[in-house]
């Protein structure tokens, strides 16, 4: 477990540069196939929350927070759904129609599908996929990325050795497995996986790389003492032919490249990622001849102090990037006007530990959650568990509200997604009856 008293330790520092970091959030990083983005005020923040033994029911759960200032319940928990188990709740992703939210556990490899379309204020479980590992051979479903009628589910590990070699699965929106794709292990590929991000205009998908179950579920102090285990982290990204789902090129990106964000600005053709272990931003783009490449473009904080970038959130116009660093609890903003030379223009300590960061489409609201992994979060007084909302005026983050997940007996706050009341389906009476009958 992370603990401040370890900070001076060289061994700890060595461990930190190999830590996995989790993320993927906000309205600007949803799949490009999601047509109904929330471009106004979000009404809800859904928080995928890790259960903590002895805290409430101890189970992983989806927590719904009222996020519209016009709501009488603004800033309060209005709903929660426990999944009846504890499996290292981690990330979530909407289906392309935004009616369903897929969420999963990195430890038990189980996937839960919530209906968020029928009543966005009260998500409910409509499907469970418990055989992800046995059917695919992969472990640790991490990224949930919508394609039309399908969900891509990127694994982190595998059933054979719980190492980092893995792949992604393609499910129909109904939860039926329809394809399994391994990450490349030839032409420089290390077989590792982490995030997926699509640029359909270029028929390109990018993937990044992390580490396996044997590492990310291991107590940190034991991992630190295992030199061989510390070597087993990803150092590649892959450029895929999206239409064919075939790898086109492996890019060397050392230091565990994690979240991938495409610029959304019209005419742009680049993506950015943060390498957690080296605390660097990398730019991925094609050269003049169309050949894809990756290059280091900025440093996040002082790498010698091990800030640990864990999540990033890009503006809707690609002009700026939020970066959360876990160890120093700092939220940084980088100006991306020139993506070849990002410039940090702001920073603020937003917690004793911070992981996920999600911004609204207009960039005026920023939400931060605290938890990284159950075994890696800090301990004692440093183990704050929260969702904090801020207003952003371009110059300063101003606190808006906070939910204390320990005081509320909820657990460890991890991934966040937004919901809105306006997602009202046509023919509601008939549709509800139809959905119930086919369930």
């Amino acid at each position, binding site marked *: 477990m992370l603990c401040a008293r370890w900070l001076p330790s060289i061994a700890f520092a060595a461990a930190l540069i190999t830590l996995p970091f989790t993320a993927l959030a906000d309205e600007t990083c949803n799949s490009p196939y999601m047509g109904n983005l929330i471009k106004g005020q979000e009404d809800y923040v859904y928080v995928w929350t890790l259960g903590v033994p002895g805290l409430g029911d101890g189970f992983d759960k989806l927590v719904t927070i009222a996020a519209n200032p016009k709501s009488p319940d603004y800033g309060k928990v209005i709903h929660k759904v426990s999944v009846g188990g504890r499996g290292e709740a981690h990330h979530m992703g909407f289906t392309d129609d935004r009616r369903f939210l897929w969420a999963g556990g990195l430890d038990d490899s189980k996937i839960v599908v919530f209906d968020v379309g029928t009543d966005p204020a009260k998500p409910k479980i409509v499907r469970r996929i418990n055989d992800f590992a046995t059917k695919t051979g992969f472990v640790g479903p991490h990224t949930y990325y919508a394609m039309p009628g*399908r969900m891509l589910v990127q694994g982190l590990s595998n059933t054979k050795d719980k190492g980092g070699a893995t792949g992604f699965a393609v499910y129909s929106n109904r939860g039926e497995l329809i394809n399994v794709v391994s990450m490349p292990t030839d032409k420089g590929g290390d077989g590792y996986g982490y995030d997926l991000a699509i640029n359909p205009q270029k028929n390109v998908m990018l993937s990044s790389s992390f580490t396996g179950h044997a590492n990310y579920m291991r107590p940190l102090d034991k991992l630190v003492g295992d030199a061989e285990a510390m070597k087993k982290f990803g150092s590649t990204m892959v450029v895929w032919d999206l239409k064919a789902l075939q790898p086109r090129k492996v890019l060397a990106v050392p230091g565990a490249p994690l979240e991938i964000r495409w610029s959304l600005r019209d005419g742009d053709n680049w993506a950015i990622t943060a390498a957690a272990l080296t605390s660097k931003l990398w730019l991925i783009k094609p050269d003049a001849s169309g050949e894809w490449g990756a290059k280091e473009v900025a440093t996040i904080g002082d790498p010698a102090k091990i800030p640990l970038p864990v999540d990033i959130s890009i503006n809707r116009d690609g002009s700026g990037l939020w970066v959360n660093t876990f160890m120093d609890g700092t939220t940084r903003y980088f100006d991306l006007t020139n993506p070849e030379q990002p410039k940090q223009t702001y920073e603020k300590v937003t917690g004793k530990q911070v992981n996920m960061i999600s911004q609204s489409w207009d960039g005026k609201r920023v939400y931060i959650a605290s938890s990284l992994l159950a075994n890696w979060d800090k301990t004692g007084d440093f183990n704050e568990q929260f969702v904090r909302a801020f207003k952003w005026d371009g110059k300063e983050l101003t606190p808006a509200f906070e939910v204390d997940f320990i005081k509320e007996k909820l657990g460890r706050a991890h991934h966040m997604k937004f919901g809105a009341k306006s997602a009202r389906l046509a023919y509601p009476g008939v549709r509800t009856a139809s959905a119930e009958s*086919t369930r």
Partner: protein
Amino acid sequence: MSSLRALAATAAGALALLGVTLAGAGAAAAHEPPAVPDPPAVMDFVPPAPGTYQLHAIMPAPDGPVLDVRGRRARLARFTRDKITLLSFIYTNCADARGCPLAYQVLHAMYDRLRESPDLRERVRLVTLSFDPVHDTPAAMRRYANGVLAEGSPGLEWAFLTTASARDLVPLLDGFGQDVRLEPTANGTRAPRLGHVLKVFLIDPRGIVREIYTTSYLFPDVLWNDIETLRLE
């Protein structure tokens, strides 16, 4: 995201159509077919060659009762089996350049290409299915399809369908995963406005959905290669 770029690009190609439908909103002209489409937006990539990739077996196409332009009842399966099918949901009052006019535009481009292909025109059919059964009666769909029906093309089938009620329609929407949302209606315009993500479905002769196109992949060259890929299976 990148889809925004795609939308912007494709919207440019549909502006003329948008003008037609906006002008006609709230009037009988709303049931007029879109004008002969402009060429679709230019693709920004080279699609993989036919037969070099696999198309997912995504799901069985749902079945249910539908009405043709003469008001005759039939099962949708009649229009999704035994041939390669391109199916698009529309509603005739749609004024979203990213929606129904674009679908019509691309299907019309495919119609033109298929007519010139003796090899494919009898193996492929096009289906346009309304998701507004209240206003899109068989007669309204006949007016919408008038240009195509009048033109005709031996061997090449383009079916224009609607449903008798929401009760018949909704299982098809849910079965295809076609979202349709109610949106605010401006005063004086015909209700309802139906928000939706444009989707065109590629269905193999067994009735299995093999690809779902949104604006980002809705290019005739991509559709053509996918049809050829199915034919090579």
